[in-house]
């Protein structure tokens, strides 16, 4: 059915043109009117390709002959110049159709090539982000382990403790990144199904903040929870990852010492979590981009470009929303809404 449609429409176009020729016959001589058929034929070629255009050309020649060329009502042609006109119509129509069809195909190829190139660029960006993000914590771990193994250097107990702490933190960071990569592929495959249980979000957030203490460094974190905050039905692991990504984002994109504000509230239907920082904020043109995988805002801060896209994916998997809001003053303001 779908394949027959272009042919039907092409013939319909020719029929309409024939009608138009009938109306205008008194104002044009016939050979000029013949040119009108080129309009539906070229349109068919550009739109649907060679087949419908060829059919349109042949139907046009036959219809014109039958209805307009004397003797009218037959498929014979009395005058030789009329015959030449018809042959020229078919020939011109077919040649033009061929050209239009070639143009259509090359546009199609170009689009396909463009898409392939975009996919390639995406893969390169992914590889680059993953390489950088995996190697950076590995670099600290390797440096510290190789340092601790130096037999000719006496590290103090304090030094050892610090080197081991960095190893510990960076192993956690690798784990977070691998978790994000895994979640990204699960979100992509649509298999990230939340296992919802009533959870105390305030407790969850405090646990995340404790775990992220090193990364947050000297940034002061203010955490306000509405009194009588209800439990929220959610997947603990996923919301933990979501909140971790939001806080990691705030820590990465703000200068040391700048404050981070976290507010947890609820109304009758939903829980609301606001994460507000005082960093450079998010440019208007970046507001949609930052939620797409492997894309980052126009900052030079390192990152895989995965955290926010996963956070939003998880919010949506819970039937909720994650949005960036206009912050009062500088800084970024992320608002998470989860149904209770």
């Amino acid at each position, binding site marked *: 059915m779908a394949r027959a449609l272009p042919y039907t429409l092409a013939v319909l176009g020719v029929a309409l043109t024939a009608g138009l020729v009938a109306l205008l016959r008194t104002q044009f001589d016939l050979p000029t009117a013949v040119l009108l058929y080129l309009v539906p034929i070229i349109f068919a070629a550009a739109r649907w390709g060679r087949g419908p255009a060829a059919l349109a050309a042949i139907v046009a020649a036959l219809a014109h002959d039958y209805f307009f060329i004397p003797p009218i009502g037959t498929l014979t042609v009395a005058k030789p110049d009329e015959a030449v006109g018809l042959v020229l119509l078919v020939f011109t129509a077919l040649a033009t159709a061929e050209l239009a069809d070639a143009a259509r195909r090359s546009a199609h190829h170009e689009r396909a090539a463009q898409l392939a190139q975009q996919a390639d660029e995406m893969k390169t960006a992914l590889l680059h982000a993953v*390489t950088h993000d995996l*190697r*950076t914590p590995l670099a*600290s771990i*390797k*440096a*510290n382990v*190789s340092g601790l193994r130096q037999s000719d*250097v006496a590290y103090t107990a304090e030094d050892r403790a610090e080197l081991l702490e960095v190893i510990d933190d960076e192993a956690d960071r690798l784990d977070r990144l691998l978790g994000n990569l895994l979640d990204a592929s699960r979100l992509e495959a649509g298999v990230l199904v939340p296992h919802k249980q009533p959870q105390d979000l305030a407790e969850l957030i405090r646990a995340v903040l404790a775990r992220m203490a090193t990364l947050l460094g000297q940034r002061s974190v203010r955490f306000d929870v509405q009194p009588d905050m209800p439990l929220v039905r959610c997947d603990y692991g996923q919301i933990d990852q979501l909140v971790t990504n939001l806080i990691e984002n705030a820590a990465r994109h703000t200068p040391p010492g700048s404050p981070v504000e976290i507010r947890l509230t609820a109304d009758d239907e939903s829980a609301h979590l606001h994460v507000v920082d005082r960093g450079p904020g998010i440019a208007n043109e970046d507001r949609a981009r930052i939620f797409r995988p492997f894309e980052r805002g126009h900052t030079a801060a390192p990152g895989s470009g995965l955290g926010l896209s996963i956070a939003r994916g998880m919010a949506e998997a819970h039937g909720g929303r994650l949005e960036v809001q206009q912050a009062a003053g500088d800084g970024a303001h992320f608002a998470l809404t989860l149904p209770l």
Partner: protein
Amino acid sequence: MVDDEPQIRRSLRVTLRANGYEVDEAATGEAALDLASVSPPILVILDLSLPDLNGVEVTRRLREWTQLPIVILSVRGDDEAKVRALDAGADDYLTKPFSVPELLARMRVALRHSASETAAASGLIASGEVEIDLTRRVVRRAGREVHLTPTEYGLLRYMAQNAERVVTHGQLLRAVLGAGYEDAVGSLRVFITNLRKKLEAEPSAPRLIVTEPGVGYRLKLD
């Protein structure tokens, strides 16, 4: 020590101090330039990807007024930037992840930089069974004189004068063939192959002229 990753700075601060160095830190290129001008260090460890100026630009700006040794840190995949940093005057590079002993070794070589120029001034450089006498323009292997073409000798001399340090393809080509030949890496490979045939015990597993993949070569001393 210039890196925007706080954990790397923390790691190197502790390990380098334990190894007897004093460490000042900067997280951005601008901060690094300020710090270097206020209290000039004996050596700079410089990460290539910084949030403001990149490592190449920082190298270029430092080289406007100082010859202090610069060791670049990079992540694999940054080959092009690494080469540009070396061409801009950085002394050496290390690819992350690296071990502390490796870093210390590179730092010592970079710090010996002036000492190796002294060796070049004395004119005699020896590695394994190869001897390069720069004053007499004579190269010997196991005591026997080796005949080198002028180009081969030029390349060997440049690498010997920068012994133990990485020299980029561009630096070698400019030094020997002159400006404008920096892209002739293919010809350079041929010259190096010939040099190895004449000087190395096993030209396919070189120990004197080692390849730094994607960057250049390094002449190893014993």
